[in-house]
């Protein structure tokens, strides 16, 4: 995939987003008010963060289906920690959330690396295990708003320069990924491993280790989002973010990240997440039946993916012209 190829794909997706926003605005003009767009971005921030983590995993020919379960378990763990120790400062909570998430990602990574179990099986298994563990540690109980400390709940909501901290974290993660993917050896190794694992071995890249690193990154981001999610909605229970892993994968696929590995970009993941976030936020305000809402968001995903597939399909080349004519 050439650099210009990435660009054109992103331009098409960005164009689709502009068109989508335009269509929504024709039915509900207030949607494009800057404050509302900021809200939509803020609401999409968790999806953006997770989609970036998922991107590096998918690029290395793996998949992480345990992100939502990891998010929920970390969220429950830090919420319980907060009820037990309300005075624990937020930086500690953040460190614990990221650490716990990384550990769960590391478990996925080690199983894929050391035991060579197919990634989809590993993460399907750990997804169930992590959800199960939430039941075990919480006993099925909710952690409610009044049980959490104010500083715990207010952190993602604090505003800096008009934007909530949650949005700023998403922006920082995007910037960090731009550097990681474009400017570091590890970032290039992700693509090498996904593009051609055998060639990657000959260049001295340890394929399993690189995949494991991708899982740790994805897990760390899931852990971070776990805290932000629980603090934002001020409630923690077993089923939070149920089914969210599929949305994360969908965001990546819409963003042009190839499920077969090796192809993808930070911009693509970002735009894919924004596309889904806009659809999700627009559906409630344009006033249509909830049954149609499901069909519409599903169709939007399929159309976007189909569009991507046709635009990226490379045309076959006849290399033996003479032989073809001869037959």
């Amino acid at each position: 995939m050439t650099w210009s190829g990435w660009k054109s794909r992103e331009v098409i997706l960005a164009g689709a987003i502009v068109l989508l926003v335009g269509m929504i605005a024709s039915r509900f003009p207030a949607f494009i008010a800057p404050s509302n767009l900021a809200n939509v971005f803020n609401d999409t921030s968790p999806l953006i963060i997770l989609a970036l983590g998922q991107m590096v995993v998918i690029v290395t020919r793996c998949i992480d289906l345990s992100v939502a379960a990891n998010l929920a378990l970390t969220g429950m763990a830090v919420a319980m920690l907060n009820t037990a120790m309300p005075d624990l400062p937020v930086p500690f909570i953040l460190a614990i959330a990221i650490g716990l998430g990384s550990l769960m990602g590391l478990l996925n990574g080690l199983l894929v690396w050391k035991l060579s179990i197919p990634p989809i099986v590993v993460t399907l298994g750990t997804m169930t295990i992590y959800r199960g563990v939430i039941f075990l540690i919480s006993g099925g109980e909710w952690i409610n708003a009044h049980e959490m400390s104010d500083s715990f709940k207010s952190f993602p909501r604090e505003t800096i320069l008009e934007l909530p901290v949650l949005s700023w974290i998403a922006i920082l993660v995007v910037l960090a990924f731009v550097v990681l993917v474009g400017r570091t050896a590890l970032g290039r190794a992700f693509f090498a491993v996904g593009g051609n694992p055998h060639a990657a071995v000959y260049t001295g890249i340890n394929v399993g280790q690189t995949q494991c690193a991708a899982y740790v990154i994805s897990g760390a981001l899931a852990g971070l989002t776990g805290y932000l999610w629980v603090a934002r909605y001020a409630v923690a229970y077993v089923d939070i973010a149920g089914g969210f892993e599929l949305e994360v994968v969908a965001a990546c696929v819409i963003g042009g990240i190839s499920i077969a590995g090796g192809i993808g970009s930070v911009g693509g993941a970002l735009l894919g997440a924004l596309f889904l976030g806009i659809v999700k936020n627009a559906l409630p305000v344009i006033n249509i039946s909830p049954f149609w809402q499901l069909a519409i968001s599903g169709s939007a995903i399929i159309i976007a993916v189909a569009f991507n597939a046709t635009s990226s399909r490379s045309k076959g080349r006849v290399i033996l012209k003479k032989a073809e004519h001869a037959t």
Partner: protein
Amino acid sequence: MKLFKSLLTATAVAAVCLAGPAQAEDKRIALVVKALGIGFFEAAAKGAEEAAKELGDVEIIYTGPTDTTAEGQIEVINALIAQKVDAIAISANDQDALVPALKKAMDRGITVISWDSGVAPEGRQLHLNPSSNELIGNMIIKLAADNLPDGGDVAVLSASATATNQNIWIEEMNKVKDNYPGINVVATVYGDDLADKSYREAQGLMQTYPDLKAIIAPTSVGIVAAAQAVSDAEKAGQINVTGLGLPSEMAGHIDSGASKSFAIWNPIDLGYSATMLAYNLATDKAEAKPGGEIPMGRMGSLTLNDKNEGAMADPFTYDSSNINDFKDIF
């Protein structure tokens, strides 16, 4: 996700199977809920245990799927049939989808009742409504109207669009809304009992209807999410979130002023009553027939109407004056 759910359900089912037989003479009553891990049902399970203790020879099997689907409940029901429980008391995720599985249970001699969220009459012997649907429908709009002397726009944030009980309450509410002049029900939206979707729907309501004065959420997940969305939009005090919620989950939002009052029946009483009813039917101490009266311990007795349905008690209103007494109970 589906696979994950069936895996988890299978594990839950296996756990149920492994729970093993109790003493031969014990009546085993299964309390099947919409989904595990919901505070309301956990409280109902406490009530069921209380009834079991009072009755003495009863073992409660508290179970349910991990998410609110009919498929998950069917798997649980089949597992319960296989281990030959004496009675099933279920809060249904779908009023029709569970009928074949529950009929099969009744054919094997298992007593089947529904409570909270009902099953169609052919799939159960009786249905225990927490309160009468008319009372609840009236209560939720009255809670909104009481705080709006000058009237105004209100909107409904429900659970899923197919949820049996929420739909009935909203229908009953719409029947009596003309008794509240000035109260204008502008929209009904669905948050599917997911915190993030409900939150987003509540945000959508605030945007679409800038003059919105109240959000009525007749579901415990929706009311919490809507209250949080209203606080985050700094509209606590301007928009009153009300409906049906649990004191433990709503305490913080009553304090913040996002919710002035809400109502709920006591889920402990509900689980208790369902167990008592199932026990009395399973031991042939009473029969479920139209007009019949079935005793339910300290809650008095349940009078059945022509559809074999009965109502337990009136919903109770919670506000800043009494929330602290109840928030640690359920």
